[in-house]
């Protein structure tokens, strides 16, 4: 079948229409635009996910605290035990914040190293 030389010749002679010379540069402009859209999409998705997760955590916190106060304490005065729980919560939140900052910091360093390796 590969010997069908006249068929190949006919196909070759038909391929006269070529792409314009600026085709690749126009395409790359669209690719860069597409890349920006992709980045924005990822950013918006990330923000949405973080917002949803935060709202869920806040709702859960409010629900738990409300429940705790309703059943354990009739008065809206915080006991030392409740204060301790608040303190503990802030302590955990502080540790989580530090971990997030460290994670972001090390990721940036890792990405920079990878880029340097490829260069």
């Amino acid at each position: 079948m590969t010997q069908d030389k006249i068929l190949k010749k006919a196909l070759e002679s038909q391929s006269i229409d070529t792409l314009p010379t600026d085709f690749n540069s126009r395409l790359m402009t669209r690719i860069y635009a597409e890349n920006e859209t992709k980045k924005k999409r990822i950013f918006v998705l990330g923000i949405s996910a973080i917002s949803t997760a935060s709202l869920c955590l806040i709702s859960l916190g409010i629900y738990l605290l409300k429940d705790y106060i309703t059943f354990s304490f009739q008065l809206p005065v915080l006991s030392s035990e409740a204060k301790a729980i608040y303190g503990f919560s802030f302590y955990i939140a502080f540790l989580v914040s530090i971990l997030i900052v460290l994670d972001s910091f090390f990721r940036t360093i890792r990405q920079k190293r990878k880029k340097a390796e490829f260069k």
Partner: protein
Amino acid sequence: MENQDELIYIKRILEGETNLFSYFPERYSRSIHALIIRIIPSKEDAEELTQDTFIKAFRKLDTFKGDCSFSTWLYRIAYNTAVSATRKRKIIFPVLDDFSLENIPDDAVDLILEKEDDETLLQRLELAIEQLNMEDKALITLYYLEEKSIAEVAVILELTPENVKVKLFRARKKLYVLING
């Protein structure tokens, strides 16, 4: 080795070096355009669809697993893009009677297609190619012009290798019928 280089390029593009993507249109735009223009007769539409193929490839670059060569993957996107376009534009291809193909001996087809310097036959063959359906056009373009293997053509057109062989033989017979009016 070439495929390995392309995998490295893809990895780097996914890590943010978008400018490296220019390697792919520089290397494959002509071949992709040659396949699309065979299916979509309009020059402007073929150019637009060639661009769409590369943009789709860029969008889905993270889904390329490397189980076939990048060019095969790109041709598959191009073929699917062109097929979708023919459906949207309602392009109709002539249908040949399958029964008439059964009666054509393989030797007669071989004899005609083995000729090389027959100008009249060449012109008739060019006209005959125009009248093939899109799958046959894609088949012969990939196999004869782009010199893809049967296995690669099968991946691009999402067929089995046996099916590709059968369809190639049938395409040759269709050309024989169209040449002989």
